[in-house]
């Protein structure tokens, strides 16, 4: 007996469904008038800065990286092309495949490249410990900082000791609140690989932190 086949003609579902990049209006505005790049800058300055800071553990270097990232983005903006995801989508506005690119993913790719460049340059110089630098400048609430000092510095030092790719994935997940698919696009990996990377990183952190006091 013949089996009924419910198949529609034309392009596959993934190709027909296009996800809207939430930054598209801002990007279009900045393209037509570069002075309006300021809105994009204000939206992402803290995220890019945080990413650079967790990577390099130094405020001054993180500022340099942030500056270079946004200047490069401004110059290269006319050449940015939004690429729609082809694979599975998720509920947090992510992109489905490593070659997909929203503006945020593109910006973080630039940031990652600038960080790599900066890391090569400062390889021979000593860096400030992550936890000390974080506590000295990140948290304005001095009393709260004093109370949580031990716990927070323990967590930061554990994350700081992770291998580069695991630390980077955790920072993008928890600090920049990216979806797995966005992280995959930034790091140039598959979503499955990133999921496993984060899972293993969490397991390492859990093992080092031990039971909650």
């Amino acid at each position, binding site marked *: 007996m013949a089996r009924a086949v419910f198949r529609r003609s034309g392009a596959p579902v993934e190709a027909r469904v296009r996800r809207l990049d939430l930054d598209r209006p801002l990007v279009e505005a900045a393209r037509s008038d*570069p002075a309006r790049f300021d809105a994009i*800058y204000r939206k992402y300055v803290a995220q890019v800065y945080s990413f650079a800071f967790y990577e390099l553990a130094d405020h001054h270097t993180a500022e340099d990286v942030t500056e270079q990232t946004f200047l*490069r983005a401004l*110059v290269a903006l006319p050449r940015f092309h939004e690429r729609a995801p082809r694979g599975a989508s998720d509920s*947090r506005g992510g992109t489905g495949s490593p070659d997909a690119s929203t503006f945020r993913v593109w910006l973080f790719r630039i940031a990652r490249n600038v960080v790599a460049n900066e890391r090569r340059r400062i390889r021979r110089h000593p860096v400030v410990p992550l936890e000390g630098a974080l506590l000295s400048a990140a948290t304005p609430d001095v009393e709260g900082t004093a109370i949580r000092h031990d716990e927070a510095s323990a967590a930061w030092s554990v994350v700081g000791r992770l291998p580069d790719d695991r630390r980077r994935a*955790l920072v993008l997940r928890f600090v920049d*609140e990216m979806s797995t698919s966005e992280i995959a696009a930034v790091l140039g990996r598959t979503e499955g690989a990133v999921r496993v990377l*984060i899972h293993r990183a969490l*397991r390492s952190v859990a*093992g080092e932190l031990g039971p909650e006091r």
Partner: protein
Amino acid sequence: MTFERDSADVDALRTDRYLDAILAAAERHAIDVPAAIEIDPALRRAALRLRRDLVRVHPSFRFEERLARRLAEAAAEVSATSTEPRGASAQVRADRRSAAVVREVDWDPAVDPAADLARQDRRPLIIRGAVASAALGIAGAAIVVARRRSRPLPPMARAARAVRRGSAARRFSRARRARLA
């Protein structure tokens, strides 16, 4: 082996969904966090701890405003160069723009994601046009030189050449007539 890998993938997927849930809960300022009994309690604790302790770091207000001014200046330069006369090609305008804005930044094309594309775009257009025009120029010059170098034949030589051509034509028509007959 395959089973172990599959179970690791499933665990990773569950952890990923749990992280999605706690991040979304924080986004909507929910007090409680989703209970995920299928996830290892140690992993849950670690995730919640990192959610709390890995804070987003904001740069200083002074730095943010200084960079905003710098970007505004750069944007003005970009606007100025993009309104150049039409005679300048898009590539030339883009190059000038990049040079103007990024001259103080240590620009390394190796780390610029758009640089490869720009390099690919630029070369063939310029080189192809230059080669084509140069080839035409050389061919024209060769023809002119050849014509100038060829001296005119004396009248007797021209007459001999005409007779030779005529006799060849006659021989051809005679042979053709013989074939038809």
